[in-house]
């Protein structure tokens, strides 16, 4: 069964990263998981997942625990293809034949775009443990279009602040102004994806990321320029993670559990936190392609992904960690501590999903981002 999810990429929610010493992976961002493809014996489903979803690919391709167990239970083999951003995934899908892909892991913020292209099949909420998904994570505004549900939340986390405790006190990390405070010049890395970074600045300015308009961009630009002036680099997950792990920077704007949780065993000085002012939440959703010829197998895969066991494995995948969408995920206490499980109600209340701009505003945001980076 082919499954399409976001892979490791330059843009999009946490993309997988490699840690300093080897293959420890990086975070997956909300926009990262793409298509995945899986296969039963002779009838494998394919999954398309975002680059962030490189975790999924590693697990699928490498036969890691997450997909191995599904295959053992169902005799269905999953083939995964990861991608860098939703735009890349859409281009990939346009070049594929209908039915080539079965499952799509995509940023929640882009589900509507995909539905408008008639790519996703309607899902029956009764097939999934919706009651076990925290209300804030369900995001019906993103996953339900025209009264029909097309995707289920799969994993989430925060594009918040990742920091080195030995260099930056925790109270400074919680203070969003640290990012543009000249005292930290050269010690800041910015995650290279304009949606969460612009969204975070909007939150700092007291705006709701979902309600941004072109009129908000000049004020956002001013803060972005100040943050950029403080930054040693603007990098993808791997690069910003490497900069933090090697001591080049003390803080990563847009970083989160995805960028440090997998490293904490080796680097206990690395931590993450949501700023006091609030922050941005990445969310990935999973759905079934409308043209899938293996809908039954695809739905079974979604059910496995949403199951407590599947969620625990997905949340702590070697590629990058993130919060499971299912609150009943069977995580160990140590894992919950790393994910700041007890603080989740507070974090969920203070965080916003990615902005979901119109095409025109999205273009303006991208131009703003390129312009600030370039100068």
């Amino acid at each position, binding site marked *: 069964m082919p499954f399409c999810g976001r892979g490791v*990429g*330059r*843009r*999009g929610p946490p993309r997988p990263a*490699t840690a*300093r010493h080897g293959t420890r992976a990086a975070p997956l961002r909300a*926009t990262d998981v793409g298509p995945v493809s899986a296969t039963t014996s002779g009838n494998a489903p394919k999954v398309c997942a975002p680059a962030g979803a490189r975790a999924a690919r590693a697990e699928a391709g490498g036969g890691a625990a997450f997909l191995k167990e599904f295959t053992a239970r169902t005799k269905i083999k999953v083939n995964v293809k990861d991608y*860098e*951003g*939703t*735009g*890349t995934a*859409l*281009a990939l899908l346009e070049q594929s034949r209908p039915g080539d892909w079965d499952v799509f892991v995509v940023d929640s913020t882009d589900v509507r*775009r995909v539905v*408008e*292209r008639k790519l996703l099949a309607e899902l029956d909420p009764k097939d999934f443990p919706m009651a076990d998904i925290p209300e804030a994570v369900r995001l019906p505004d993103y996953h339900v279009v025209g009264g029909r549900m097309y995707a289920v939340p799969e994993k989430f986390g925060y594009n918040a602040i990742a920091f080195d405790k030995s260099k930056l006190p925790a109270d400074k990390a919680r203070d969003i102004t640290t990012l543009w405070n000249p005292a930290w010049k*050269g010690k800041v890395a910015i995650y*290279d994806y304009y*949606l969460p970074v612009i969204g975070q600045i909007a939150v700092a300015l007291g705006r709701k990321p979902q309600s941004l308009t072109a009129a908000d961009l000049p004020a956002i630009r001013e803060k972005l320029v100040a943050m950029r002036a403080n930054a*040693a*680099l*603007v*990098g*993808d997950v*791997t*690069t910003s993670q*490497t*900069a933090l792990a*090697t*001591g*080049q920077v003390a803080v990563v704007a847009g970083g989160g559990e995805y960028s440090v949780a997998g490293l904490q065993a080796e680097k206990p000085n690395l931590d993450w936190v949501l700023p006091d002012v609030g922050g941005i939440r990445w969310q990935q959703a999973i759905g079934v392609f409308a043209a899938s010829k293996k809908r039954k197998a695809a739905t079974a895969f979604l059910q496995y992904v949403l199951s407590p066991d599947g969620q625990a494995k997905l949340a702590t995948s070697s590629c990058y960690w993130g919060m499971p969408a299912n609150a009943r995920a069977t995580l160990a206490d140590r894992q919950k501590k790393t994910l700041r499980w007890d603080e989740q109600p507070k974090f969920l209340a203070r965080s916003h999903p990615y902005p979901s701009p*119109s*095409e*025109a505003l*999205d*273009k303006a945001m*991208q*131009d703003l*981002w*390129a*312009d600030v*980076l*370039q*100068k």
Partner: protein
Amino acid sequence: MSASRAAAVDGIAAWSAEQRGARRDAGRGLALAAPAALWTIAFFLLPAGTIVLWSLFRLEGPELLTEPSLDNYRRFLETDSFRLSVWHSLEVTLLVTALSVLLAYPLAWVIASRIAPARQRLWLMLAVLPFWTSYVVRSYAWLLVLAPAGVVNRTLLALGMIDEPLALSFSLGATVTGFVHFFVMLCTLTIYASLVRIDPRLRLAAADLGASARQTFVRVTLPLSMPGVAAGAFLTFVICIGDYVTPQILGGNTRLLLPQVILLQINRRADLPMAAALSVVLLVLVTAAYLALARWLTARRS
């Protein structure tokens, strides 16, 4: 009369045979050239034509408008970040090309003229050893070498030459270093190939005629090795200006190069027409470099 007639008939027969031969040769030439021509059409002309065609389309919201227009090129000219990316790409590429050739030439010259022929292959293999590792791995390795706690900074600190680590990574210098490390190997191979093809008797003749070692190098060796220099420089230019990985990893986005801006159009918004227009700009730059070097090479050969 009959003799002249016979001669005329013979002439016509000979002419016909010649024509048939010419047609056969032409047919054989066509058959021999066909694979290469088809290859070029399939893997260069068609893709390049498709890119040019797409660059004339437009993305309006989620809709692709296929009515040809020059809007994307107009946007390119009007947008600072696009124009700056071309300038930054040229700046990095020309710097990398110059440094790579300057560093590769002495290395190639030493291998070609100061190492015994039997050992030259070993030296060449050692020179290209870094090619054996992945491009991405090599870039990340440089990131660690240039980090505050990396080899370079630790050495400088230990020698007392600096008091605190220098910010070497995530900079233009880091990008150029990563590129040059790669392209020196490439240029070494092309320059070496040119140097070993030079007839040693030419240098001896120059010496016999009273040329000093410097004069022999400047007036004989260097001009005759220029095809290798130009080939290395061109390959460096083409690969460097289109590379995305090295500036992305080592440059820290301190400045965006053209390939990075192209990818930015695709990653999230899937603006393939704008990406195609920027790719055409890239193609024009590469073509200009080729034309410049091709003219120069032709002149040298003649």
